[in-house]
């Protein structure tokens, strides 16, 4: 265990995690997941929101087992390493809105940071302005961090609080397997939710058990190595620490090689899967997402892993992401392959204003 622990806290931990994600994500696409969307914490949480009936965009409704695996894998790893530590109290209400706006921004670009890197490695050059926006968003967050921004300290919490999020994931898994129908139409016949897309990206998925296993594996590896696609940029900027950065480089390289090997590397801007070509808002959406993730302390994957190891504030962030999916697909802020949504750009501006106010006003109280 010491050797393994040493490996994961060495520079090889994030690199190994990045390679595993980079190889498995394109394989998930090969086995049925949407194009360049082997794994996407934002899209997949949005699909779960749709399945639950939080939005009625019929093409993006599915309970993604990868997300369930992320949380449960992190739970298992943190229990094994004696790092499962229920905690809360670091501005959960603000974190809800950070999660919401991060999701709204990500769905203007059409992908979380993980998918931005995966889109790049699949040859979707629209990811380049997205990643540029992500870097800018993170750097704005770094400025706030240097000015003393903090959402405050969390505190140890009763054990039960730490188990709530993993339990919710078990409920989601039961919904996925048994597909109960909670709705009733005018005639009283059973209908969704739970909704499952009949067409579109929500109807594209790899086999359940394989997706769940991949999620569990990545959850375990990422909990041990602290893999974070936002921390990769942030720590390089604020600490001159490339520990996490090399993990993201490994992800991109491994995914590009795997995509080439599987014949899934299709370079260009036009006709990319689940993507649009509006450079300004590919950039702008990710500025918002990058900033919101940075203020919340990590990328959406990291928030899911933290929620699995007992961090209830990260769990509230994830609930905020579900809320963001509701807003994005109900108030027409989400983009589609046809282009940006009617209220996408204005909502990005609203989100940026929110994040700037949070960044400028939240400070740790001296005790």
């Amino acid at each position, binding site marked *: 265990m010491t050797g393994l622990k040493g490996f994961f*806290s060495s520079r090889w931990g994030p690199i190994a995690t990045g390679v595993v994600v980079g190889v498995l994500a394109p394989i998930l696409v090969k086995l049925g997941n949407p194009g360049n969307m082997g794994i996407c914490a934002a899209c997949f949480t949005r699909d779960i929101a749709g399945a639950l009936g939080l939005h009625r965009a019929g093409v993006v409704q599915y309970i993604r087992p990868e997300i369930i695996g992320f949380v449960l894998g992190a739970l298992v790893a943190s229990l094994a390493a004696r*790092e499962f*530590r229920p*905690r809360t109290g670091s501005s959960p209400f603000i974190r809800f809105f950070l999660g919401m706006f991060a999701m709204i921004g990500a769905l203007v670009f059409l992908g979380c940071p993980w998918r931005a890197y995966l889109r790049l490695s699949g040859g979707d050059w629209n990811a380049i302005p997205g990643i540029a926006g992500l870097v800018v968003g993170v750097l704005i967050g770094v400025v706030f*961090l240097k000015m003393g921004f903090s959402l*405050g*300290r969390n505190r140890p919490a009763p054990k039960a609080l730490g188990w709530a999020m993993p339990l919710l994931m078990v409920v989601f898994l039961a919904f996925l397997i048994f597909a109960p129908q909670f709705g009733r139409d005018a005639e009283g016949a059973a209908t969704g939710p739970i909704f499952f897309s009949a067409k579109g990206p929500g109807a594209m998925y790899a086999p359940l058990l394989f997706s769940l296993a991949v999620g569990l594996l990545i959850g375990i590896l990422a909990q041990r190595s602290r893999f974070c696609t936002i921390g990769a940029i942030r720590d390089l900027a604020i*600490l001159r*620490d490339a520990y996490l950065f090399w993990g993201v480089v490994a992800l991109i390289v491994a995914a590009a090689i795997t995509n080439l090997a599987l014949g899934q590397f299709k370079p260009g801007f036009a006709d990319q899967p689940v993507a649009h070509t509006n450079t300004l808002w590919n950039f702008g959406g990710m500025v918002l997402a990058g900033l919101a993730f940075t203020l919340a302390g*990590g990328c959406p994957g990291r928030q899911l892993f933290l929620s699995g190891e007992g961090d209830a504030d990260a769990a509230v962030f994830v609930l905020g992401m579900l809320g963001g999916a509701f807003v994005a697909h109900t108030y027409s802020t989400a983009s589609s392959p046809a282009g940006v949504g009617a209220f996408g750009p204005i909502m990005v501006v609203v989100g940026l204003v929110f994040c700037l106010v949070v960044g400028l006003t939240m400070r740790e109280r001296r005790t």
Partner: protein
Amino acid sequence: MNDVTIVDARGLSCPAPAVAAKKAMKTQGSGRIEVLVDSGTAQDNVTRLAEGAGWKVTAEDLGGGGCKLTLEK
């Protein structure tokens, strides 16, 4: 030389524990710094940064997930 700085980084989100420890190392230059952390992530990050900057790090388990990292140079 005998200055001891105590950094309480318990309960702080990433990257605050590492940033606080780095600031203390930069301010003090040498001597002894005690960093209180309560997550494996913070412990790993502070340890890696301190060792990278030539500090000797010893960890003392405080129970309940807490840990005192003593940095010496």
